[in-house]
């Protein structure tokens, strides 16, 4: 029931945010309609960062308490985070091509986001390839490394890029934003957060079901073998 309520709220928020982004917010003077991709790009970025943060917390909790629920939460947030991070990396170049004239530039924020994406994809690959009951522990350890790495990545890449001439000036669109544009950004963010929460919920329930199934299988195997042992 709670799940349905969240689903309905998400749907309403997404619709209203679409209206906000596409019609209510004014047309940007120099960039034109293409600027509206910004309402999807930025909220996705914020959402994915929050997902990765939640993944870090869940991983620490897992290592401290050995609670499988924390592990299920960690998988869900990492997967959803990677999805939103992918949206960021796809919408970025789509916007950059007409506005900057190039698809990609190795500037600090882009590169950090790309590295972030790489780190969490490697986390998902580790989960996929690792065997046995050690998976949650190993994945949690990697998640902690990954999260601690992010500020170091950001520092290093910022320095790397300020040392060289910037190929493109990233016009600070964050600075002089029209209040109605802000409104559109925030509505979209709320909608995306609700959507992410919904996805995480579904994924979490799936992962819990898988864990319980595994446990039941193990117990049943013991039970069956016991039944056969009547000498």
């Amino acid at each position: 029931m709670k799940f349905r309520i969240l689903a309905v709220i998400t749907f309403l928020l997404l619709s209203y945010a679409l209206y906000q982004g596409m019609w209510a917010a004014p047309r940007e003077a120099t960039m034109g309609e293409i600027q509206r991709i910004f309402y999807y790009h930025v909220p996705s970025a914020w959402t994915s960062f929050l997902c990765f943060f939640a993944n870090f917390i869940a991983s620490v909790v897992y290592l401290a308490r050995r609670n499988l629920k924390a592990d299920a939460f960690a998988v869900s947030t990492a997967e959803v985070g990677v999805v939103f991070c992918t949206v960021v990396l796809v919408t970025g170049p789509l916007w950059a091509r007409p506005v900057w004239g190039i698809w990609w530039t190795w500037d600090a924020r882009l590169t950090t986001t790309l590295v972030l994406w790489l780190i969490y994809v490697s986390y998902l690959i580790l989960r996929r390839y690792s065997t046995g009951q050690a998976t949650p522990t190993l994945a949690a350890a990697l998640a902690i490394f990954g999260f601690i790495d992010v500020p170091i990545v950001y520092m290093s890449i910022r320095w790397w890029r300020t040392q060289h001439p910037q190929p493109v000036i990233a016009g600070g669109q964050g600075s002089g934003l029209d209040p109605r544009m802000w409104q559109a950004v925030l509505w979209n963010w709320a909608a995306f957060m609700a959507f992410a929460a919904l996805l995480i919920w579904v994924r979490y329930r799936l992962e819990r079901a898988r864990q319980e199934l595994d446990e039941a299988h193990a117990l049943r195997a013991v039970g069956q073998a016991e039944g056969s042992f009547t000498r």
Partner: protein
Amino acid sequence: MSSLAAVTASNLRKDLRLEWRSKDAVNAMLFFALLVVVIFSFAFDPTAEESRQIAGGLVWVAFLFAAIVALNQAWMRELRNQVLDAYRVSPAPANALFLGKALGNFLFICAVEALLMPLFVVFYNLRSVGPAWQLVPVFLLGTWALVVVGTFFAAISLHTRSREVMLPLILFPISIPALLGMVEATTMVLTGIETPAFWISLLVVYDVVFTTVCLLLFETVLHAE
């Protein structure tokens, strides 16, 4: 504390002895890095001036790939005959195993670097414009950065299918800032345009932070079942 130092030393001694007898890791690393040197030279065909610009990248990519070979070997030795189990049932501190292994890998990779650097200099006609002694701290810090996280992740990949493939997949993304630091610092020394101070301090930060994290988490990973 004294037992940590003593057991670390005995682990290191054991790893050096085993490597000395089999020479598996060092031989494979040397030949591998040599191949990379030769192949890069075909691929880029640089002049002396160009090679000074790209040498930092070439050297470190070669050593990075070579290090993967050594890191994979290091734990394989403990899996044969399931010797690792004997360590796990003993009261010896887990971090002593980690430190011994990391120091061993560090020495092997440093040895390979020392042997191959002259070759790089010859093949690419390198001559450093900046003060060449600065390369020493860059190489020591950079190698430790690769080795400490690499040794830890190699222990993680022990529990995975196709573990030799797994190590680079999880190690490279995390190592990106360290790699950037090594490459930039080396290039700066070679071209002599700027001082590598920032990159050296970045490597110091990276080394300190991740050595700490490794020591905090290794026991958990060693006993993960």
